[in-house]
Each structure stands twice: as C-alpha cells, then as structure tokens.
C-alpha cells in the first residue's frame, strides 16, 4: 500500500492506494475465479484509530482513497492495514510530513 500523509493547519490528510484486483462476484464468475476484494481497511497513529472503513467489491481496482483526521503531529507514524475476503492482509506504514 502506498501512503502519503501531510499535516496542514492541524489536519492530517492521507492519500493511499492499495494494490488489489478487487474482483466483484460478476467479474470473478466470468473469469472462472473466486471473488476477492478488500473488506476492511484501518489506519492507526500512535495506536489510535484514525480510519475504520468496511468496504465492498465496488471500490475501483487498486483503490485510491483520501481521508483526514485531527490530533496527529508531523513525524508521527501512520500504520495502515487491509484485509480481503480470502483473509489475506497487508500492513504498510509511513511518516506524517
């Protein structure tokens, strides 16, 4: 997962991209493979949850998303994790600039 986090006026804005095919049930059926997509994404800073998102198959392939939160400082580490339908998980981290 690629993460860019920037702090401005007390609000941290994070742009992230998860690498995932996000196969819907329809597409998977056509291709004869098992549907698989990211089902949950979390982000934490200093062990505090800053993003908690349940997702469905309708996010785009390699989904890009942006979110914001308060209460972090420049230099803090942001840790993001996704889990997909088949149970695979990936964790990435970045530093807030």
């Amino acid at each position, binding site marked *: 997962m690629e993460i860019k986090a920037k702090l401005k006026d007390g609000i941290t804005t994070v742009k992230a991209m998860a690498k995932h095919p996000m196969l819907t049930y329809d597409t998977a059926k056509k291709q004869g493979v098992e549907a698989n997509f990211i089902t949950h994404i979390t982000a934490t800073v200093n062990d505090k949850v800053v993003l908690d998102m349940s997702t469905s198959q309708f996010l785009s392939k390699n989904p890009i998303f*942006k979110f914001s939160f*308060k209460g972090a400082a420049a230099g803090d580490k942001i840790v993001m994790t996704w889990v997909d339908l088949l149970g695979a998980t990936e964790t990435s981290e970045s530093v807030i600039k």
Partner: protein
Amino acid sequence: MERRKFLGFGIFAAAAALVPGTLSAEDYRKTKPAVWAAHTIEDAIAKMYGTSTTIEQGVTLTAPDVAANGGAVPVDFSSDIAAKSVAVFQSSNPEAAVCAMTLNENSVIDFSIKMKLKQSGTIVVVVEGKDGKLYSAKKTLSVALGGCEG
C-alpha cells in the same frame, strides 16, 4: 490433548492481543452482513440504521455528471456534522453498499474514494449524526462505459 490445549490458548492470546489495537473499530461486514447483500439503496440504509428516512442537508457530495470510465469514478464527500459513521451507497451495481466508515473524535468527514459503477445510477452518502438523525446527499450520474466487466 496437551498440544491441542496449547494451540487453543495461542489463538485466544492472539485474539486478546488484537483487541487494544481495534479499540472502537467496528467491522460492519461482520456486525451487519445484511447491509452488504441488500440490492437497493433504501433497503441497505434500512438494514444499516434501522430506518431509511434521511434529512437531505449538511452533506456535500461531489461526483462527475458523466463518468467516462465506470471502473474508477471519483467521489468526494464532506460534512461538518458531528457524526458517528458515514456510509456510501449506489444504485448502479447488483448490491448497493460501497463502504462504511466508523468515526471517532479525531475524524474529519472529508473523504475521496474511487468506485466502480456498472451503469448510470444514483450515489447516496449517509452521515449518521451523534443526535441520532440521518443526513444524506444524493447525486445522479450517467456512466458512459460500465466498470464491472473487468
């Protein structure tokens, strides 16, 4: 038997260790599985919040009028409402739910996501206020090229 007990304890310990990290996190896919199987926006909102009555104000939703590529339609939404959660639904795909976010005191409602839309339809963003009311914004758009075909 000893080994089995040991493994069982290991799983329990791992689960316990995960709890502090998740804190207030709620996995809507586990707690509300019916939401993700609902086919219409109204149905999905009703399954999520218990009612499909929303107040259409206080939420800003930006999406293109015509999406050239249904595979990645940019959708931005923001709000100043003190809220517990935000959810996004659409009417273009077989199921209605796209994503649901649980908010806490650090959250700012200012999101951008990219979603797949199979055909023209309506996007609805619902913000669940701390006052227990549901606020929403709606956008109808047409899709030139559907995005669910792979």
